[in-house]
């Protein structure tokens, strides 16, 4: 039994933590929120220079060939700092290439991802409509992609995207160079510290990633991996929100003593702690499953998803509550967490769907 990161992975985390603490203090997220930039090049460069982007990419494609756990520990630190970087989106694209790409596709793109020369993303949603295998509107036909995808995380800064589209043979994942035949529109969102865009494909050249007709299964697998990465970001951010609340509760006095000495606050923060711990071990389980291609991955990814949503949402909203009025101001950092929590809870589709996947997985494993 060794249910923990290795010492090397913990050292890497320390290293990423130091780099991001310096390159991405919360002021970076605030600058992005107020439109100063679309992402923090400083933080992104720090991650690229540490070689992280290639950690899970085999050496033959220009990576370090370490594994996925290194990607996960980095996500946690990005969450802690709310670093405004296109990390999740780029790694999800790398995962798509690793799992479904041809040798040519891998050779073409993975080295550039590992080297930090290109930002990637994925495009699945088509506005507020429910996303299902049977109602996709964006179409891939004769090497061309047509239709609109929104919201697309980092869609306005990415150079390459994996897109979920319908074909005559059923859903497919396709690879699109966003520099060609794609118009983009920045979306108004509730967390402007991470940009989202509408991508309009007007016959953009594209190519299949994997087989047509198997796209929905491939998409589901990809989202399982995305869920684990995102859960680590959420856990990191939830921890940081809890620390903020704890520190404020120690410093702020009411009626002659720290507000953290009242059970109303103590029990609130203890509840957050417990939610964070539950989410953390689910994320860790997910990391194990994603790095070993375990059959448990769908279950671990779903429980990581739901428990991380629960933890980060609770921590972000109760951090404001613990801060009192000051927490509701624009200048307070509390809002950065509150907005990010909402973005992350929505990113990979409805929580209810992920809960249903948990029960389906339990039933399958009981039947097996």
């Amino acid at each position, binding site marked *: 039994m060794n249910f923990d990161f290795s010492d090397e992975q913990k050292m890497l985390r320390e290293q990423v933590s130091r780099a991001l603490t310096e390159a991405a203090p919360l002021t970076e997220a605030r600058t992005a929120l107020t439109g100063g930039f679309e992402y923090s090049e400083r933080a992104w460069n720090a991650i690229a220079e540490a070689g992280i982007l290639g950690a899970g990419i085999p050496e033959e494609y220009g990576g370090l060939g370490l594994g996925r756990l290194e990607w996960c520990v980095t996500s946690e630190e990005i969450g802690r700092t709310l670093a405004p970087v296109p990390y999740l989106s780029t790694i999800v694209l790398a995962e798509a290439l690793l799992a479904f790409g041809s040798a040519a596709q891998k050779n073409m793109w993975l080295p550039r991802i590992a080297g930090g020369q290109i930002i990637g993303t994925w495009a699945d949603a088509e506005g507020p409509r429910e996303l299902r295998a049977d109602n996709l509107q964006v179409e891939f036909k004769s090497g061309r992609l047509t239709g609109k995808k929104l919201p697309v995380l980092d869609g306005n800064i990415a150079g390459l995207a994996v897109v979920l589209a319908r074909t005559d043979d059923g859903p497919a994942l396709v690879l699109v160079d966003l520099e060609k035949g794609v118009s983009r529109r920045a979306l108004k969102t509730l967390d402007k510290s991470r940009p989202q865009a509408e991508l309009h494909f007007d016959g953009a050249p594209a190519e299949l990633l994997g087989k047509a007709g198997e796209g929905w299964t491939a998409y589901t697998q990809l989202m399982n991996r995305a869920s684990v990465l995102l859960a680590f970001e959420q856990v990191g951010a939830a921890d940081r929100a809890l620390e903020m609340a704890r520190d404020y509760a120690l410093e702020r006095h009411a009626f*002659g003593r720290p507000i953290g000495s009242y059970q109303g606050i103590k029990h609130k923060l203890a509840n957050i702690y417990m939610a964070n711990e539950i989410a953390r071990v689910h994320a860790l389980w997910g990391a194990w499953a994603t790095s070993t291609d375990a059959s448990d991955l769908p279950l671990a990814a779903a429980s990581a998803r739901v428990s991380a949503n629960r933890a980060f949402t609770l921590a972000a909203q109760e951090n404001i509550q613990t801060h009192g009025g000051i927490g509701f101001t624009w200048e307070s950092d509390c809002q950065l967490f509150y907005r990010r929590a909402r973005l992350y809870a929505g990113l990979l589709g409805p929580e209810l769907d992920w809960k249903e996947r948990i029960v389906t997985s339990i039933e399958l494993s009981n039947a097996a």
Partner: protein
Amino acid sequence: MDFSDTPEEAEFRASVRKWLEANAQRARGTSGRFTGTGTDDIGAAKAWQASKYEAGYAAITVPEVYGGRGGTPIQALIYRQEESAFAVPTGVYEIGLGMCVPTVMMQGSDAHRDRFLVPAYRGDEIWCQLFSEPAGGSDIAALRTRAVRDGDDWVINGQKVWTSGAHFADFGILLARTDPTVAKHKGLTMFIVDMKAPGVDVRPIEQMSGGAEFNEVFFADVRIPDSDRLGAEGDGWNVALGTLMMERMSAGQGFGFFGATEVLELARKTEIGGRPASSDARVRERVADWWINEQGLKLLSYRAQTALSKGELPGPEQSVNKAIEAPQAQEIAYFARQLRGQAGSMDGEEIDEDWVHVDRSWLWAPGMRLGGGTDEVLRNIIAERVLGLPGDVRVDKGVPFNQLTS
């Protein structure tokens, strides 16, 4: 038991409604009254208040001798109920006429009443309430703003915060410390302050929701004549409690959050598993749970109204109201978000009016869980005042203010 008005009440309601129909537009859509006081058109608000005054609806329960109608609390409630269906700008007067001006009427001199009441009711002059301070939070009596006697004047130095409408207020009621050598509740005094006086500096606070309805107010050597003191020197805490009690009289106002039936309506337009989300059992169960609370709060307001119409003081309905509604609004907005899938992170303006309302609920709910008593303070109030449980242990009890450590 009877949900209808008495004949007298029905007659009053009919006349109110007739007047409103003739003078205002009915409100449309689901959006609530979150706009607060920051972005309102002050001119429109003043015009509306003036016409209410002319019609006798600006100060319904105030004796005629002070410029009011001499009516009953139930008439005031009926007016509020009817007015709430119309799109009229009342926000800028809520705190002034609801809490400050009644304090002036009760605690002020005849000269104060002659000078201030009618201009306030007519809407010519707007009032704000200056109690909260940065260091205090829920512990209002820990305030540090000093008032030092100098001849016939008091000289004010210090800072207030979360002052709603200070940026357009003409006057305020100000709670300041006149004696730091006694226990913190004992050394306070209440004053009327001219918000246009030299040394008053108002700075808006930008909220996380984007607007700026609240302010910081700085006082630098602001002079207030002793004749503008409200109540005795050192009696400010009792005067302030009287002001805060006024809130209990305005029972049963909703906050305009996105609610249970609105979720149900919204769910008809979105899908889960290819079927309308409104047919999903998980959505429906949540709607039922939330609706029970919303309807319960409405029924509690009917009970408060019943007490008012019998001349009794309502119970703790207002505390219960906010303690339940604000956290629920946050929960509802969070859940509604997922009805639009990944588009849940987009701004409602990218979609439609309903989603704008959801977003506004989501952004304002954290503020409503804090302002006017936090979730925690409200539960303390219920535990102590209703259930008779002891107050929290007070380590500062009886300690002179200037010997408190923080």
